[in-house]
């Protein structure tokens, strides 16, 4: 296998993992963000701290905890395994790691957006007969689109860049669990690997530029729609 092919594989896997992670994490993060912004319940402070934890802990620790929880020999891992969902040493594990690591970023952005929604508009929707979920879906959700978008692009970028937790949890198997950051790291581990590393860093930059540009274009459309300008 030529080096270049491996780099492309890593890029493809990273994109796949990041897209998948973003897709799963967005609704989940939205729900948590909504809970944190709008509900009071026991354990709210704990949940809030928990969401931030992956930011505070070194990623290796997060990866290690994942390994302990979802390893093939761990009860949880075994249970999921028997359901056909293998996480450890599988790209789906990389997705899980990416979700966890990007979660705090997503939740924060979305929560900020939810808190900025004028409750008077939600009240107006309620007086028009809209039940709670419809108020959320037809008023809150469209109004927080910029926040969702910001969260999604940060989460996607983080998922693209996640390394420590991923390599610890799912290792660095080319074509299977080797994401772009793992490949870059591995390239940096051998003498003369900088050339390869630079090529892959440029790939990552290109993805970042693309994702950011796309999100900006979407954000402009959303903003135009919301401000009605």
């Amino acid at each position: 296998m030529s080096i270049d092919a491996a780099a492309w594989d890593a890029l493809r896997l990273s994109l796949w993992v990041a897209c998948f992670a973003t897709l799963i994490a967005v609704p989940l993060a939205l729900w948590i963000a909504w809970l944190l912004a709008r509900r009071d319940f026991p354990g709210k402070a704990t949940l809030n701290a928990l969401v931030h934890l992956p930011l505070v802990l070194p990623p290796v620790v997060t990866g290690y905890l994942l390994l302990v929880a979802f390893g093939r020999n761990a009860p949880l891992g075994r249970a999921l395994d028997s359901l056909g969902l293998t996480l450890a040493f599988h790209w789906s594990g990389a997705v899980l790691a990416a979700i966890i690591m990007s979660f705090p970023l997503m939740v924060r952005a979305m929560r900020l957006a939810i808190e900025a929604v004028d409750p008077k508009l939600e009240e107006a929707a309620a007086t028009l007969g809209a039940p709670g979920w419809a108020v959320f879906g037809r008023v809150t959700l469209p109004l927080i689109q910029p926040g969702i978008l910001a969260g999604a692009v940060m989460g996607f970028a983080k998922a693209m860049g996640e390394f420590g937790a991923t390599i610890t949890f799912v290792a660095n198997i080319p074509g299977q669990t080797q994401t772009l950051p793992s490949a870059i790291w591995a390239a940096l581990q051998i003498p003369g690997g900088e050339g390869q590393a630079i090529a892959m860093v440029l790939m990552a930059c290109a993805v970042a530029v693309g994702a950011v540009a796309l999100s900006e274009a979407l954000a402009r459309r959303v903003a135009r729609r919301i401000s009605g300008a």
Partner: protein
Amino acid sequence: MSLSVDIAHTFGDFSLQVTFQAEGGITALFGRSGAGKTSVINAVAGLLRPDQGRITLSGETLFDGDTQTFLPSAKRRLGYVFQDARLFPHLSVRDNLTFGSRYAPPTAPGPSLEDVLSLLGLRDLLDRAPGRLSGGEKQRVALGRALLSKPRMLLMDEPLASLDAPRKQEILPYLERLRDGPLGLPILYVSHAVDEVARLADTLVLLGNGRVQAQGPLYEVMADPAAVPLLGVREAGAVIEAEVIQHAADGLSRLRISGGDLLLPGVQADPGARVRLRVLAQDVMLSVKRPDGLSAVNILPVKIETVHQGEGPGAAIALRAGQDRLLARVTRRAVAELQLAPGMGCFAIIKATSVAPGSIGR
């Protein structure tokens, strides 16, 4: 359909303690800025949970402080037109208008989008975003949005304050039709404008400082000389019912009230119909003998019931014309010169044009 409100609530220094009943039709909440009108209407809509009390609509309890009952806004089906329009900024005018229609029971009666578009002159704005509307346009969309949610009752918080007079003259008859039509849609209507209130309301609740100052059927509250200061001197005046007799070629119509006939312009109702007339106290002159050679064509024999001297140079005089009550506002000097006194008979001169089409309803 009857609304009964009996609530108490405190915001910091301000305390609200309001009890009133509205038996269908249009109930006007009238009062100065900060009197508590919006707070009352919010409590009815379910946006404010009062500290205590009870609100019922046609027997259904919307709120009961004792039993901790609180029906959520969405289940009350009350169409609320907010003081600030509160349009959804991300939706086009069309989507704002139709927002609530899907939550109404499919069989619920109500106006169609077409009706609302023509009434409110919104047809050209359908694809506009709310951010690009003028102040009055926003308010019209808000009104249309509430109407199209097919509510059981309309709550209107100064819905016409930012509208020009011609537009008001289009909307007011429509509200009357809603009230009087097959729906009999009851309306709780907040307004500063006495002429709107006089024209529309069946029941009048005068609010001041969080308390009800006077309440009752419009005819009674309006014809009460004691209510003159609450309503404003220039705005006081009786409201009477009349029957349309016939329309003449020059546009004047003959209307019959219990005390005689009046000739008025701009009456739209068919002969035989009953209409409501607002006769401003200041538009009624008194003469001790029947005058002639006057451009005023309406002269009614009346009996003076009470003479209510206010603080200023004017006096409010309650008159009886047949079974109807009229209110005249004259100067004290006139009271003295003409020796006006209760029990005295005289002639009320009402200028034909002073009963504007706008104050004729029902």
